[in-house]
């Protein structure tokens, strides 16, 4: 569920960006739907806004063309950590891609889900408790995902991508966090965004969870 006060603050910020003709922040909305036996049993939209240090550093490196080569992590370092906690980098020619695109059963890039409820911290580089892909206890089967639409309306570009997770585990699974693992050149993976869900999502056995990321860039400052 969207927070009315936060939405108002964001509108105010976007208006200020328009006035000054500067890039507004990218908006992310996370749609969560659970279908069970052909029926929609859960339907919610939440705002995703928990960009990690990996994302901040990658964006700065992109616009400035500096390399992500520091071997410490935190304030004062331009570095990125992969989900295993190791420093990985791509010197120069930074290519950020694959926030949404992922192959079947792939849990290293694209939209991922977990059961962790620990509060968001900007230094996080992996989901708190990633749900693995599979059909055994505690696992969800990750389907392939890709961008499904790129549309322009009301001076905003909206890019949508979904991923379907099937629960063939024999028991219910509670999804409490979602994330975006980015693929750099398809070989280096970084957590760019993690959202602890305001309302956790229970996926009953044999049910299907659809997570839809909607990424919106407001162009009204220039269009």
């Amino acid at each position, binding site marked *: 569920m969207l927070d009315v006060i936060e939405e108002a603050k964001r509108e105010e910020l976007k208006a200020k960006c328009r006035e000054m003709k500067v*890039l507004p922040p990218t908006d992310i909305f996370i749609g969560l739907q659970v279908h069970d036996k052909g029926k929609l049993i859960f339907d919610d939209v939440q705002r995703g806004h928990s960009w990690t240090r990996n994302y901040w550093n990658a964006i700065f490196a992109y616009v*400035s*063309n500096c390399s992500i080569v520091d071997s410490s992590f935190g304030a004062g370092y331009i570095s990125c950590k992969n989900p295993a906690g190791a420093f990985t980098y791509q010197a120069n*020619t*930074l290519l950020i891609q694959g926030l949404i695109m992922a192959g079947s059963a792939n849990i290293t890039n694209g939209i991922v889900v977990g059961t962790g409820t620990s509060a968001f911290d900007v230094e996080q580089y992996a989901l708190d408790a990633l749900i693995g892909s599979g059909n055994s206890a505690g696992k969800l089967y990750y389907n392939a995902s890709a961008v499904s639409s790129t549309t322009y309306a009301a001076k905003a570009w909206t890019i949508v991508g979904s991923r379907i997770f099937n629960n063939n585990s024999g028991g219910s699974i509670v999804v409490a966090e979602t994330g975006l693992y980015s693929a750099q050149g398809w070989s280096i993976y970084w957590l760019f965004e993690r959202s602890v869900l305001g309302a956790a999502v229970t996926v009953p056995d044999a049910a299907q969870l659809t997570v839809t990321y909607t990424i919106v860039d407001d162009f009204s400052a220039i269009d």
Partner: protein
Amino acid sequence: MLDPKEEAKFDELKGMFRDLKLPPPPEIFINFQVHKDGKLIFDDKQRGHSWTRNFYNYKCLVGTNAALTNTGFGAGHMSSKNTSGSYDAGLSAIAGAITTGGIGVTRGIVVGTSDTAFNIDQYVLGALINHGTGAGQLTYQASAFDSKAYALKVWTATSKRIMNNNSCGDITVKEIGLYSDSGGFFLIERSVLSPTVTVPDGAQLTVTYEISMDFSSID
């Protein structure tokens, strides 16, 4: 010269981003120094804030793998135009705002003589000053990423380019831009200068781009 009113507005804007813990927009400052006979005869700092549509579109596509359409350019088109005016899918792999500029004018920091007002759909400088020693030309030195620094919770990346005037006449620089090299060449920022910069014959112009990003909402 920096405008105190504009700077105050930017500070206010950054405060709003901090409040929401969001990455603020990257800022650009451009320093100009002219040396002649070993003496500094001009020294100025201006804010660069004229990102082009090429930059906006790339920023929008970052990370999503959405496709460029390349069927038109302007509002409602997710496309890119290179400095030749052709659509070019190379934008999907744009290298960065400050690119290594070899000798010449196809990439990196470039300057021109046009004072045509900035327009978001521009894809080339208004009147690029060519590389050379002929009339109206400057000799562009190679440039590279210079340094990055962290202070007061702000990251600043710096890149520099030197241009020598061996043209036998004065040259007035009125615009500056960044040509990104990503297979094709793309104008991603253009600033019309105020004041303009006169480079006398035999003088040397040093342009320093500083791109900074305020990390204070997370650091």
